[in-house]
Structures are given as C-alpha cells and as structure tokens.
C-alpha cells in the first residue's frame, strides 16, 4: 500500500470527524447489514485513516448502508456515520469504483433514471429497468407483481410531474463531471 496517494474523499464535508473515532464498534454493532459488509463502518473509518483509499473505493460497505441511522444516534463521538456513507457513495460513483457484483448501484441508477425521466418513481418501472440488468431478480418478482395486481396495487403507468423537462434541467444544472472515465 502506498502512503503517498491523495485522498479521493478529501472534499467530503465533515470527513475530519472520523479522526475522532475511537474504534469502539458501536456503529458496526448497530448496523443491521454489517454481516454483509466487507468492512463495516468502524473498519472503513480505520482504513480511511490509514490511507487505504483503494480499499474504501472498492468497498461494498456504503452500498449496504440502509440509512437506518442506528449508528448515528448511538455513536459516542457523534460522528455522522450515515451521512458519511452517502458521501462515500457519491465519491465512489463518480470514481466509477463501485463493486461490480453489487446490485444496489444498478438499483440506484434505475431509481435515479426514473426521477430524471419522469420526476417521480413508479415502483414497477424502476424494477423493470433494474430487471434488465438482473433478469433473475426480475423473474423472481413476477409472482409478487401478480399478487400486487390482484390487490390493485400494481401501477404500470408512469407517474409523472407536469413538466418532466424541468426535472431534467435540474439534473443538468447539478451535473458534476466524472472524475475518471
């Protein structure tokens, strides 16, 4: 591991708060999906402090963060763990280093694409778009769709804002150039 790399996460607001981490593990212990994570938050902070940026860039941890905020209300150093996870995802997505086999980035993309196109999210359509990349998941969700249909809860028509272009403009105005191709 090189100790001379520049920190790709440096611009994150409140990143310096992880220097206050005492590595107690409250966050990871509170995390409902810690067992699925390669590092869990505490370890991720330790890696970051050591300068193991590559590890962090490729970590699945932020992608498994469910935003339950359990860590955040318990952290004895009041580190905004969940907020940092969001910020990590933002950096990782821009660097294009999200773990290839992880399903959440695709889900997020489908979700965000739906907003960009229609301003709103229509569950069935998001699942459909996501399903194009994960046909197996799509297949598995068919019985559920049927069940929902039976209870009048399946909406196949996209919900839309009045002027979807304005949302597209909002997206364009907030575009940040990719760091890496």
């Amino acid at each position: 591991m090189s100790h001379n790399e520049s920190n790709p996460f440096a611009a994150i607001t409140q990143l310096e708060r992880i220097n206050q981490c005492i590595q107690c593990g409250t966050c990871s212990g509170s995390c409902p999906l810690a067992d699925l994570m390669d590092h869990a938050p505490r370890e991720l902070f330790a890696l970051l402090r050591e300068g193991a940026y590559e590890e962090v860039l490729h970590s699945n941890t932020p992608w498994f963060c469910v935003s339950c905020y359990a860590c955040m209300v318990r952290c004895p150093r009041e580190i905004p763990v969940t907020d940092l996870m969001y910020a990590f995802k933002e950096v990782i997505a821009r660097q294009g280093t999200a773990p290839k086999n992880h399903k959440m980035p695709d889900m997020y993309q489908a979700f965000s694409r739906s907003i960009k196109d229609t301003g709103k999210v229509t569950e069935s359509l998001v699942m459909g778009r996501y399903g194009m990349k994960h046909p197996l998941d799509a297949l598995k969700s068919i019985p559920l769709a049927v069940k929902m249909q039976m209870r009048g809860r399946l909406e196949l028509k996209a919900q839309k804002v009045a002027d979807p272009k304005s949302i597209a403009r909002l997206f364009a105005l907030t575009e940040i150039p990719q760091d890496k191709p």
Partner: protein
Amino acid sequence: MKICFYPGCSFATSAGYRESTEAVCRKLDIELNEIPDWNCCGATVMFGDNKLRATALAARHFALVQPMGFAELVTGCNACYATLRKAARLLAADEELFRKTQAVLHNLGLDLDRIPKIRHLLEVLVEAMPDSTSDKYKTLAVGAYYGCQLTRPDQELDKGNYPQILEHFLSRIGFAVQEHSASTRCCGASHAVIYQNECQGLSQRIIGEIKGKGAQVITTVCPLCQFNLDLAQNQKNGPGLPVTYFTQLAGLALGLAPAELGLNKLLVSADKVLTRP
C-alpha cells in the same frame, strides 16, 4: 384544519395508506392540500449520488410550498420525511449549498427563501384524533412499528430507540398496545427488495418479536415498512400478522368501514382480527 401534504411516490400504490388517510382526514375535517406537481424526494438514493441534486430535488418542494402560504409540510412516508428533513437541515447549516440550491431552483422559475417545518402525518393525527369512547378495540393487541427514519437521526419527535408517541396514540384512540422491543429495528428498507434472502432475517426477527410478545396486528407509519413486513410473512409458513397503517386503525376508531380504509389491499388479511361484534 388545513395541511400542506406531500404524498410521495409510494402513497398511491400502498396497501390502503392513501384511502385511509383521505377517509380519516375527511372525517376529521382536515383539508389535505397536496403540493401541486410534486416530484420524488430522492429518498435514500439521491444523497448517495449527488448532494446538490438531492438537496435541490427535495428543496423544490420547499419552493412549491412557499406560494401556498403554509409554514409546515406534512408527509406520511418515513423516507420522504427523513429526506426532506435532511435537505432542510443541510440548507440551514450550509450557506453555500443554500445559495447553489436557490440558483438551481431559480433557473426552474422557483423561489426559495424559507424552509418549511417538515412534519409527519402521525403528528397531525396525534393532535387531531379525539380520545376513544368505545371499547370495541380494547382487546385488540397492536404492536407499534416505527421503522427507522421517523425518530432517527434527529430524535426530535421522540427517542431514537424506544419512542412512545405511536403507542400513546394507539391507546388513546382505543386499542390495546402490546409493548415489544422491535419497534425501531430496521426491516431492510430498499435492500430487502433486492437482497431478499439476505434481508429476510431482519423482518423475521421483527415479526417474531412482535408476534412472540402477543400482538395480533402490527401498525406502521411508512409504506416501505408496511410492504416489507407484509411481504416477509408470505414467504414463510404460519399464520400471518396483519400489517396495517396507523391511519387505518385511526379510521376504524372513527367508525369507518374497512373497505373505505383500503384494508382489502393488505397481503396478510386483517379481516379476522379486525372483525368485531
């Protein structure tokens, strides 16, 4: 009472959340003023994508609320609630972000000068619902389920781990409350939809705890929580525990018919437990 309401994307297709909310509000003479032309708040996705964009998407509603003359914005979805609050918090704390967001919205022809207070529909009903005078549901043991994002991270409405606002509400409107320890335990949220197998344990633990403590029905305050808990049971054998919305129980307490409250849309039927002489 008039409130400014933000339904969010899942409201319409939820298991009767919309029906019950509208019915209850009608009954209580609460005027739901839906934000015209609302968009998706961005939920838990957008902040992981682009902070400014996520803030602008949420703040678009703040700008839309402005000409409506409301100081408060009410939503019934935990994710919307938390996301809008997060945007509000960031805007209040970060002047530069505020200015940038203002500029983006201005470009869309919207003015953002002030940030409304974000409230949950539960708060509104806590204030508006009358005390129960009937014994009809006095023996129906309800397990309250908050999910994550109502009391976390702010802990402003109530405590982060063991809040009581919903329990107090339920017992006040005439239900028996079954205390349990899973009321703010995470159900897996959107991950449960994609990583079904991996997240199954989360919902199972919640349902197991609530059922084990003796509740006959669960009540939730969020569409995704309802969906996950409702769905999780269908995948396992054994008698299911109906997962209702608090608005549906409020409707029952007000004497409204189950059909009016969309109770027929639940996956695990509530008909049996709700049938009362």
